């Protein structure tokens, strides 16, 4: 599953992610990150069964962890099931079912926003 971790000005002062990995022994994949001296966020991918242990180890003042669900909002009224998003998303969030209706697997999303920008019908948005 994907975890959205945000840091406030206290949270960015220490090596919280590294400490949590060492303390929990859980390997994580950093999908995206933007951190500077004031604040920051990072999107981490962890195995479902190890997520609880890792989140526990990450508890620290200035650090907020949110499990990312439904990252992509799919407006069914606007969408015409053209499928342009399918091949521009390198994370394979989008696919067709047997009836050529668009399916969205938000679990895979890394919030790059490319689908939002290039959807011809403006039917996609991201929930951060």
């Amino acid at each position, binding site marked *: 599953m994907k975890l959205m971790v945000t840091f406030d000005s206290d949270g960015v002062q220490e090596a919280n992610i590294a400490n949590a990995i060492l303390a929990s022994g859980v390997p994580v994949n950093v999908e995206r990150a933007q951190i500077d001296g004031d604040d920051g966020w990072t999107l981490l991918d962890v195995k479902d069964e190890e997520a609880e242990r890792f989140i526990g180890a990450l508890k620290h003042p200035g650090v907020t962890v949110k499990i990312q669900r439904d990252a992509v909002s799919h407006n069914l009224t606007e969408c015409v099931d053209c499928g342009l998003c399918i*091949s521009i998303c390198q994370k394979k969030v989008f696919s067709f079912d047997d009836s050529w209706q668009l399916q969205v697997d938000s679990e895979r999303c890394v919030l790059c926003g490319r689908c939002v920008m290039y959807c*011809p019908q403006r039917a996609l948005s991201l929930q951060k």
Partner: protein
Amino acid sequence: MYKSIDDINEHIRDGSVRVVTAEEMPDIVDELGVSGALREVDVVTTGTFGAMCSSGAFLNFGHPEIPIRMEKMWLNNVEAYAGVAAVDCYLGATQESTTRGTDYGGAHVIEDLIAGRSVELHARAKGTDCYPRQSITNEFTLSDLNQAIMVNPRNSYQCYNAATNMGDHAVKTYMGYLLPGHRNITYSGAGALSPLPNDPTFSVIGSGTPIFLGGANGTVVGEGTQHSLSAGFGTLMTTGDMKEMSTDYIRAATMTGYGVTMYVGMGVPIPLLNEEIVKHTAVRDEDLVTSIVDYGTPVRDRPVVREVTYAELKSGVVEIDGEEIRTSPLSSYKKAREIAGELKGRIEAGKFTMALATRPINATKRNKPMAEHGVVRRVSEMMVGTFVTITGEESVKEAANRLLKGNTNHLPVIDSENRLIGIVTTFDISKAFARDEEDQTVSEIMTRSVITALPDEPVDLAARRLQLNNIGALVVTDTSKKVLGMLNSYDLGDLVGERWHK
């Protein structure tokens, strides 16, 4: 065995008509044979739902109390062509808003009208004795208009090429966003469910053929613009009453980085009059071949990467150079199916009858490219052939001297064989001096990835590269990276920033 159009219409009237969609037809022909299928089936319905830029509508507003001969006109700030009598216009789907750019255009005005939303009309005129008024601003809806007649100059391509990008940077095209290094493929059209592949010789489709257009019962006007049947790219000009249309089948869209377009839902019923027509409607996606074209090359005759069938494109993955590349349709197959199904329903319910074309469509026509009478200017004609260079081992101070001597801002860095390895600009030199780094060598401060041009490239392409990279000059090299000259933005004048005014 033959069937007449009257036989089929009689079946529609007495409720015994047999209609199938083009998707169902191949299996029926396999099972019953061609003559069996002709006996069993009366009509095959087709459908497509895709971006059709070449679309628009004629609107008539009626005369206001103080009459006006509208000469310039905007609908929700989208300009419509008003040079058709006093209170008429043609609104093109791809025309973009003067205030909202590519987010809103003619297609959006059309969708808003069909959805029943009100639209603001603003028009100007010089004022005449019979039409004294000089301006008008008014809100209106579709029901206020006398006529709103969609006329699409070019719809329903018989076949369209698929797109990929072999270049090293992403391109934003009317075929969607194409990732660099051929990492995705886009295609358009419903394949064997599309109208024209089911009548590739135009034996039944012609002027006057009744069709489904945007939800309305519409008509084929005749051949579409750029119709090129002998090359396999036939098109249709179509028309229908916007007042009968639905936003289920007409949708405005924006191809980001390209512009506004309109998704049009369109379907043609094919009456099965003889065995030849039956054979054509048995077409499968496996039979329909198109080309994957490199949209990374911005010229008319783009290189073909490979041939591909619609069956391969629709499978979701196509192989290029041994790699599996994912595909995206730009058109909606789900909607295309809905349209073929809806058309089938209307015929079965007796609400839609068949008609023979009043005039056939030319089957020999081939589209011509534009014969440009002006000469396409090449980079070699506009570049400056005298230039100064420097090697990577020389000092920053020497580079400064060389720039002054050459009276230039750009200094190509070359190796011992005169090949380009980098570039330094006056900015780089100033930066080095400001940081007290003038004793460094040129290779330590130069930019290694240099934006270049080839001498035989059209100068318009080089000008666009200057703009996209926001730089003042391109180094002109041959294919072995030997420096031939410099192309400076200030020598290109109007080519940069504006269209070339002669």
